[in-house]
Structure formats: C-alpha cells, structure tokens
C-alpha cells in the first residue's frame, strides 16, 4: 500500500517536472500550470473533507485571499514605487487606499499569502467549530461565505476592481511575465509547490494527528471524553487547507494573469470539490489528480462541445459520487486488491 503511494507520487513528480515541459507547448504548459493550482486547493480539501469530514464549499474565499494579495502586489510593483494602479486612476479616486500600501513589500506579500487565509480560517473555524456547527450546516455556511465574499469584492469596484478583478500584470517579482522562459519557470514553481503540499499532507495522514482527525470525523463527541478539544483538531486541518488554497491562488495570478470574483465565488468553490470527489476524497493523490483531470476535461471538451460540457460535468459528478463514493482511485485500489 505504502509503496503504491510512493510509486504514484514519483510518477506524478516525473510527469509534472520532466514529461510535461518536454512535450507541451508554452500555452498548454501554462494551462497545466493553472490546473496544478487547482490541484493544490484540492489537496487541502482532501485533508479537510476526506479526512476531517468538513465539506468546505468555500475554498474560493481562501483561494481569493491569496490571489488578491498577490495581485495587489503585482499591480503595485507594476505601478512603480509610489505609483497608482491603472484601474484606480480610471474608476477610483486616483489614490492608493491605505490597506493596499503594505503589499508593496514583497515580504509582506508572501507573509500575507500564507497568514491572511490562515487567520481568516482560524477565526472562522473558532467561531464555527467551537459552536459545534458541522456537517451540512458547515457546508452551507461555507458556501454562503463564498457568496458573501464574492459580493463584497464586486461591490468594491474602486479598490478591488469589482467584477473586473485585477489583471494586466507585467512582472512577477521583477521577472518579466511576457517572457516564455519566465512562464515556464512559474510552472515549475507551481508543480514544485504541489509536490511539497502532497508531502506535507502525506506526513499529516501518517501522523498521530491524521488518526485523530479521522476519529474526530467519525465520532466527534467521543473524542471530547478522551480529553481532546475536537474544535482544535478540526481547526488545524481547516487552516492548513485554507493556506494551501491561498498559496494556490497566489500562484494562479501570475500564471493566468487575472483574478476576479468569478474565479472565487460559489460555483468555482464547488468546482474545487468536484475534482476531489472524482479523484477520491480520502486518498493522497486522488484529489490532486482528480482536480487536474477534471479541469483538463473541462477545457478540452468545452472547446469542442460547449453545451455538452454541462451535461458531461453534471453526469460525471452524479455517477462518481453516487456510485463510486471513494472516487476513481477506488477503481485503482480495487484492481490492486484483486491482482
């Protein structure tokens, strides 16, 4: 079992770091880069949902926080040391609001990408898990959170770009974003981060914490009588998942070149979950692979059959969740068992 996992991990690493760059065009590679960002989110959801039983339908929020922090920094650094981002001059007062200023600094930005989603998730987790809001309640609440966050961003046209979001970045930490070499570099970074996240989650699964998380998932109240506070156990997984989403969002911005509320609301947040469900929620590699495969299928199928995609996506989702609750990776383990 463990060897299968290792083999799968090595195969994934080789595919991402060696095979993909060798055979894919710059355009396809950057597409794959975007999918890898989704995969990073998916790894976090796998932890929170697959292991921890928290069906989070609001990962778009954390993805968005990471992405907007990064985008703000890129906008500011494109504008120059004291410059004002273009859209603020067009639609706003022409001055940079105070809460943007810290993100001129690359250090603050990188800290922000990790800490802001972590703090928001921590605060929310405290509010929600301490009060024993769980199951469907939690799922619906997290979904409403995504809706509220998107509406909030849309309403702040002059400081967040509203529905347009933020885009038109020229450089990434002073690397020219129009240079194909730099774009490849971004892909390697994203792939490297995904692999690193997988290692982290792998360790969590193997650890005592991983066992405890499963215990909390299945019998939260019972765990209390052993002297643990299940809220803390859940918060840890939730925060880790949020940080992963935040980092993914931050990588998404230079790779795709735009972040807008449309990429973080209710629908994208559910879409994040699809890949996880299809890949296999409680496995290590399933969520990541599922996310990549679903995004890839969406892009290539919708190229040829735009309306067919809706049926296909819907049907895939229905069939896998209803009939293969452990996702497609259950098929793989089934074959191993019979082999």
């Amino acid at each position, binding site marked *: 079992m463990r060897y299968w996992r290792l083999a799968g991990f090595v195969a994934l690493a080789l595919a991402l770091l060696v095979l993909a760059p060798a055979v894919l065009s710059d355009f396809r590679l950057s597409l794959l880069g975007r999918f890898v960002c989704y995969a990073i989110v998916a790894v976090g959801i796998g932890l929170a949902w697959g292991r921890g039983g928290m069906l989070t339908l609001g990962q778009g929020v954390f993805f968005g926080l990471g992405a907007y922090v990064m985008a703000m920094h890129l906008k500011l650094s494109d504008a120059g040391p004291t410059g004002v981002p273009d859209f603020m001059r067009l639609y706003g007062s022409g001055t940079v609001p105070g809460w943007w200023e810290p993100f001129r600094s690359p250090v603050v930005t990188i800290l922000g990408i990790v800490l802001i989603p972590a703090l928001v998730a921590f605060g929310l987790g405290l509010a929600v898990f301490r009060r024993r809001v769980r199951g469907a309640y939690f799922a619906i609440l997290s979904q409403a959170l995504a809706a509220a966050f998107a509406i909030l961003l849309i309403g702040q046209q002059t400081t967040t770009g509203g529905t347009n979001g933020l885009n038109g970045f020229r450089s990434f930490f*002073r690397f020219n974003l129009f240079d194909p070499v*730099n774009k490849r570099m971004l892909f390697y970074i994203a792939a490297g981060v995904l692999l690193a996240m997988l290692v982290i989650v792998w360790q969590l699964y193997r650890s005592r914490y991983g066992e405890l998380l499963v215990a909390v998932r299945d019998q939260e109240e019972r765990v209390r009588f052993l002297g643990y506070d299940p809220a803390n156990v859940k918060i840890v997984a939730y925060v880790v998942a949020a940080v992963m989403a935040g980092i993914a969002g931050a990588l998404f911005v230079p790779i795709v070149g735009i972040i807008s509320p449309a990429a973080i609301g209710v629908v994208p947040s559910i879409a994040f979950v699809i890949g996880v469900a299809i890949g296999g929620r409680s496995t290590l590699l399933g969520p990541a692979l599922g996310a990549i495969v679903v995004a890839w299928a969406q892009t290539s199928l919708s190229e040829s059959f735009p309306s067919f*995609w809706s049926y296909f996506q819907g049907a895939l989702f229905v069939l896998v969740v209803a009939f293969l609750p452990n996702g497609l990776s259950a098929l793989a383990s089934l074959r191993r068992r019979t082999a």
Partner: protein
Amino acid sequence: GSRVDDTAGGTASASSCVDTSGASVKVGFLNSLSGTMAISEKTVHDALQLGAEQINAAGGVLGKKLTVVSEDGASEPTVFAEKATKLISSDCTAAVFGGWTSSSRKAMLPVFEGANALLFYPVQYEGLEASPNIFYTGATTNQQIVPALDYLKEKGIKSIFLVGSDYVFPRTANKIIQAYAKANGIEVKGEEYAPLGHTDFATIVNKVKAAGASAVFNTLNGDSNVAFFKEYRNAGLTASAMPVVSVSIAEEEVSGVGVDNLVGQLTAWNYYQTIDSPANKAFTTAFKAKYGEKRVTSDPMEAAYTSLFLWKAMVEKANSFQPNDVKKAAGGVSYDAPEGKVTVDGENHHIAKTALIGKVGTDGLIHTEWSSGKPIEPDPFLKGYDWGKGLSS
C-alpha cells in the same frame, strides 16, 4: 528568464504566427456559449457566423476563405483570457471577434497587447479605454449615454434616478451621468446598485417611488431587468409618468422581460431591427433566413457583424493580415453597415456611430423615437466635454 529591467517597457512584441500561405486564413470567435452570459453572447456568435459565411460566399478576404475557430468564454473572464491566448498562439488566428462584458474585455486586453494581436469588441461599454490592439465597434459613452441624457434634457426632464447592476459599466456610466447632470442642472435623486442576478427589487423600487424623480436611467444587466420591470409595474409606476431609459435592453431581451412590462419604455442604442435601410433589410433578411423568422436582431449583433466587415476592409486596405499593417491601415476605413455608415477612428480605434433613442412597441420591437441624425465621432475619454474633464484622472 528576463527581468523587467532587461526589456524597456515590459511588453514583449511577439511576432504573429498567422499563417497566410494557404488558401484560407483563420479567424477566432470568442463568445460565451455557456454560463450566465450565453443568453446574450450566443446571438453575437450567430451574427458573426452569418458574416463569415457571407464573406466566404463573396470570395473571402484577399482571396482567402475564412476558417472560423470558435471558442467558449464560458461567461468567465479567466476563460476569456485563456481562450484568447489559445486563439492567438495555438490557432494563430488573424483576428479575434468577441467578448461582451467589460470584465471579459479587461481580461483579454493584456493578452492581446502582450501578443500584439487584434480583438474586435462589439458591445457598448463604459469608455475610458483605447487599446492599440482592440477595435471597439459598439458605442462608447458619448455615442449612447450622453445622447440619451441630451434627449431627456430636451424633453424637459429635471430629475433622474439611477439604477444599475453592481459592476464596472453601470458604475462608470453613472459617474459620467452624475457629471453630466451636475453640469446641466438635472438633479440625481438617487443611485442604487443591485448585485448581478439580483432578483428582488421591492426595496429599490420603493426607493425610486419615494424619491419621485421624473425619469429612471437604467443600467441593469440581464435577469435583473425582468425583476425590476415587473416590480416597477406592480408598484404602479408607468412609462408615461416616470419613463425608464435602458441601455442594456435590446430586442433579444424584450420578450424575456415581457412586452407588457416594457411597452412605452425607452432604450438608447445605435441600431434597432426596425431601421429602414437597404443594408439593414439585407442583414435582417439574411439573418432570419439562416436562423428562423422568429429571431430578432439587436445592436450588439449588428456591431459584431459589422466588425467582421470592417476588419475585411482594413485587411484589404493594408493588403496584409499582419496586425501591425492592419492597425496602420485602420484609420478612415468605413463600411455601410445596417445601422448606417460607420467609420474607424485611427487614433482611438472606436468607430463613428449614429445614436438612436427608441421606444418599445407592443410588437416587442424597438422603434426609433429620436436620432442624432449623423454619426457621432467616438470620444472614449470624453475630452470634448467640459464636464468630462475630471472623469479620467
């Protein structure tokens, strides 16, 4: 890789990969065929298909048939950016036609500028933009909103209420309207925004009713219009007592909102299906022949259709498909469009268009009430208006 400091501006001018060696040349159509915007953008896509067919039937562009590569923008800016990249760098199309929402255009803009490719954008928008790589064939504000305000002022309207969806076009439009109103002695009694897709307008209509303006300027988009107009009517407000001028309701939308709810209300556009001209007759006849009698034509459809012919004329003038050559040749190119004669402005890449105020009839079509009479030169930054000075800092 290169640092920003290595290249002067930060934009690489990738050379176009357009292949003109064969008997055909590729063009890209990029519209939302799925998602919330599909309702509108599908019609634009249909109009573009018709145009491409007609051009091919007439021998193509520079003797080359057009091969259309269609992509779905899926109503998501990110997807627009991604598909634009694909059409430019993978498919090597000579030009891309499409986009509807301003957010989709804003998302594509850096892509086209970065690759030095061409986008033809067919929808009225909020102005304050002029990319060298985009041709704007819908109205800018001084060709739609400003004439609508002129019309209201001419009718003696002294106060207005602004209702819009919460996104860039309505917010910018309203900023312009506020500036105009201030300069022209019109009182703005209120300004309300509803999130896109908002479905309950009881409160907003309450506010409108309580404010008692003499007209409403409506920049709502999509489904919200249905809810707004139903509520408006339920609340006992009428077109004769307090007319609503809409800038996002075209022929396509009328039946969805309900003719009953719209009869007598005003719209501002540059084209209506009811325009009586040979060019429009040819266009509507061909369109209905291809897609069915029941289908209607609308301003964005016409602007998209026209954009294809404008591009053809530019290419033929330049005698080249290369974007740089096309851009150079663009200035002054004109076309006898269904809406009337349009001419490309070589500086800002917008086109001169005639402004029309229309009234919704019981037949569900929109009939011209008022016309600017001649094409209005595009002024995306409203430099020609005193009150417009502060708008683009």
